[in-house]
């Protein structure tokens, strides 16, 4: 039977990544909208705390780019309950990113429609300088990112595509991923127009595939490692206990981040 997609379904980096990890999980989470609040890892509390710390750090940078005085923000960072924030903020102030020129848009959400499909993307920072856009993504995941994996990730492919479409931009787009624990090794991508078009084609094919599947094609993943970090474990009868921190790889971490985005208690704040 043809799948009934919710009206005006909006594709995002996280829901497409979920689809790639497990089609059934995508189906349960985004089509059935099944709330299933089992633990995702044995250490959910730690993830929640790390995530909240990450949110507060992103907010500090946002305030910085809005024009708050750095001395005031240093004081805020120093008084944060998590002392990593102060170190991170000092690292940021000492970096080249504290001196960005051009038109700056921080915490920018863009919604757009490409090939009749709605997309939403949240950029940490957009810079427009000398006729070119640069996307910045601040990461606080405590893991040094792997360039090859990032290159293939949905985020890296989707962000420039949406930007170029929404701003009708034909120029190359830079994408800088800056992980706070590796401040001197930012990962820099430069996408030429043709690469953006190729990625756009990839996104189209992927969304085509998702939209035209029958219900029965949203099958359970054969990679049972995914089930260890999935809230639907009991629903699918795929075990009792969640993964430990040691069992998580980078993909797993992203997956959990995605879970928190969907299920954070303030996710529905309107």
């Amino acid at each position, binding site marked *: 039977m043809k799948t009934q997609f*919710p*009206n*005006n379904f*909006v594709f995002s980096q996280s829901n497409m990544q979920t689809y790639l990890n497990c089609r059934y999980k995508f189906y349960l989470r985004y089509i059935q*909208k*099944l*709330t*299933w*609040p*089992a*633990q995702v890892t044995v250490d*959910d*509390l730690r993830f929640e705390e790390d995530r909240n710390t990450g949110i*507060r750090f992103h*907010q500090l940078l*946002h*305030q910085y780019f*809005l*024009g*708050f005085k750095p001395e*005031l*923000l240093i*004081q*805020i960072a*120093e*008084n*944060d*309950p998590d002392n990593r924030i102060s170190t991170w903020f000092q690292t940021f102030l000492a970096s080249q990113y504290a001196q960005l020129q051009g038109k700056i848009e921080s915490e920018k959400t*863009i*919604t*757009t*429609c*490409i090939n*009749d499909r*709605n997309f939403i993307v949240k950029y940490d920072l957009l810079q427009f300088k000398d006729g070119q856009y640069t996307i910045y993504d601040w990461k606080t995941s405590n893991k040094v990112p792997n360039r090859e994996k990032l290159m293939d990730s949905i985020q890296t492919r989707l962000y420039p595509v949406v930007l170029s*479409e*929404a*701003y*009708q931009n034909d120029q190359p787009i830079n994408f800088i991923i800056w992980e706070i624990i590796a401040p001197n090794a930012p990962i820099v991508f430069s996408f030429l127009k043709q690469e953006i078009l190729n990625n756009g084609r990839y996104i189209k094919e992927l969304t085509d595939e998702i939209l035209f599947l029958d219900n029965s094609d949203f099958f359970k993943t054969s990679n049972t490692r995914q089930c260890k970090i999935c*809230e639907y*474990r*009991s*629903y699918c*009868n795929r075990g*009792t*206990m*969640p993964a430990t921190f040691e069992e998580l790889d980078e993909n797993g971490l992203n997956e959990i981040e995605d879970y928190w985005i969907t*299920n954070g*208690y303030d996710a*529905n*704040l*309107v």
Partner: protein
Amino acid sequence: MNKINSLILSSTNKVYLHGDAGAGKTQLACQRLRYLVSDPEIANQGILVLVPQRIQVKRYQKVVADIKASHNIELSIMTMSSLVRRTVELFWPLISDRSGFYRPFEPPSFLTLETSQYYMGRLVDPLLAKGYFSTVSLSRNRLLSQLVDNLNKAAIIGFPHTEIGEHLSEAWVGKESQKRVYEDAQEVINAFRSFCLQNNLLDFSLQVELFKEMLLQNPLCKNYLTRLYRHLIYDNAEEDPPYVHDFVSDLWEYLHSALIIQDDYAGYHSFLGADPKSAMRFKNIANDSIYLQNKDDVSEKKSELVNAFIDFSKPVHYKVKDIHEFITPLNHRSRFFPEMLKEIAESIRTKIDDGVSPNEIVILSPFMSDATIFTLKNELSRYDIKLRAMRPSSSLNDDSVIQTLLFFAVICHPEWEIPIDPYHISSTIAYALSSFDLIRSHFITQEISPALPVQFPSFENLPESIQNRFSDEQCAQWNTTMAWINANLSVYPLDIFFSKLFGELLSQPGFAFYRDLESGSSTAQLINSFKKFRHAFGYQSDIDQEELAKEFVKNVQSGLLAATFVPDEQDDDDQFVLITPVMSFLGLNKSVDYQYWLNVGSSGWYERLEQPLTHPIVLSRHWQPGRKWTAEDDLALSKETLEKFIRGLFNRCRKGIFLGISEYSETGQEEKGLLLLHYQALVRRALRNEKND
């Protein structure tokens, strides 16, 4: 219509649009939004759609999603409380050291209504023991909610919170002892505010005050807001309190365009500070004003009918059968309330058999009891009709899934020493463990020692004669349950405990929540509620998790913590008949073909709730200082409320209203409230007409 279109399809004018409910105002607002977001340049300038209630957001979101625009759209669709909260959170560093907070550079904790009440309770309890509030008879929860409400009123109306007691006292005409109660209230309110400042807690009133008094005066913040929002669509302005209108007035000169929509005769949320008079200011400052009326024949007839319904002195030109074409009692007059509910179910079945879609039918009452919902659900299910109850203020503890989770929490936290009634033990075990029945769970309950804490026996500790009464499957399931309990004693924080309990035990095969969709959302509600409770304690590392968890459980059990109503996809589900309190339905801004009214004889349709600690009118911007609130004022308010409700409901009904009347009400009384009297008077006048003919 062309003139209206040219005013609506513009990005440069400021328009005030008002009229009857159902006349198409929101439709025009959607057209305007479509027009604004379709133009890439305007869409990029920043659009704010402001609505008084979360549930109205979806309609506008849908407009945008349907447009399928490839350009960027800078759009925020939100309620004012959300805008306030986000702004305060973002600009906190700019104001915190000038607002009296003891730890201004630390992050604040935002309180919800429930967590505010919780903290208020901590301040009130020792005072209750000292005899404060001794002359009022109110449950603790209602006392707390009225105190918090007073603080919120001061903020949204715009007077110092230190003057609440004085305002209430000045208007009071009864016994002098009541004035002492107002003084008590003022003392607690002052203490609460100091407590918030000491602990970086931001309740709603403090958020609003910071927003109005500090942030809107701050150039960086003001600049941010005025650049973010260049175009405004503000729907149902009459349902918002005056501070929202003040904000929009402040924004006015910076806006490129504005469309303000007001529903005439509404302001249903006046008890929460909604102020239609204050919203009317936009009529004077807008460049253009549009008045929309329901103009078709049916609407005109309905409007005549509603006028005659409301005003006893209005002559009636029709016959009884004309009235019954639109508003009529059910065919058979029932003696008792449950009988009448059966009649309603039967009548709904007929309608659906005739091709009416279930979501074109709504059942309304001023209040909603569990028993009514339960009976109607059962009656309708006999005809395969699904009923959806929307009760915004139901308590978490009303939900059987949540009761089960709390039950296991008590069992797994023996240190709390919370007692459980034996009947509850038996019924919960029989419900949670699918292989069990009441007899088997009763055997287990009998073996539990009456001393606290409640502790389950392991299977091998049961007497052999009892062991023999269990099947292998039951024995295995009991052992699984006990093993899980023993491995999860005293797990904190409680949200993690609930998550484990749900995922590792109760949603596993053989247990009650296995593949049960509703149990997932109920559990998530409980977990979210606890998280908010936990977050309200901020970032203090020395929080006593045990105390926190126990307090939470006690508060849920006492009904203080409400199930937050989150509108979801089901709103548009045409498979369900909706049952909801009148006020919630009016807030939905939706019309249906048929309405069924329950408890027609009740005074709940118009009487103000008994609120000895607060007052929606005295604490409003239009109250003259020094005036007294008299019995005549009360009567006038009742009439006004009833009129508003009747007009609102008529305007939201396309085809017909059915009155569920029984000789004895739900509570066994013979009720003859104003609504029933109005209806009877209308019919009597029509009968007189027929006789005269």
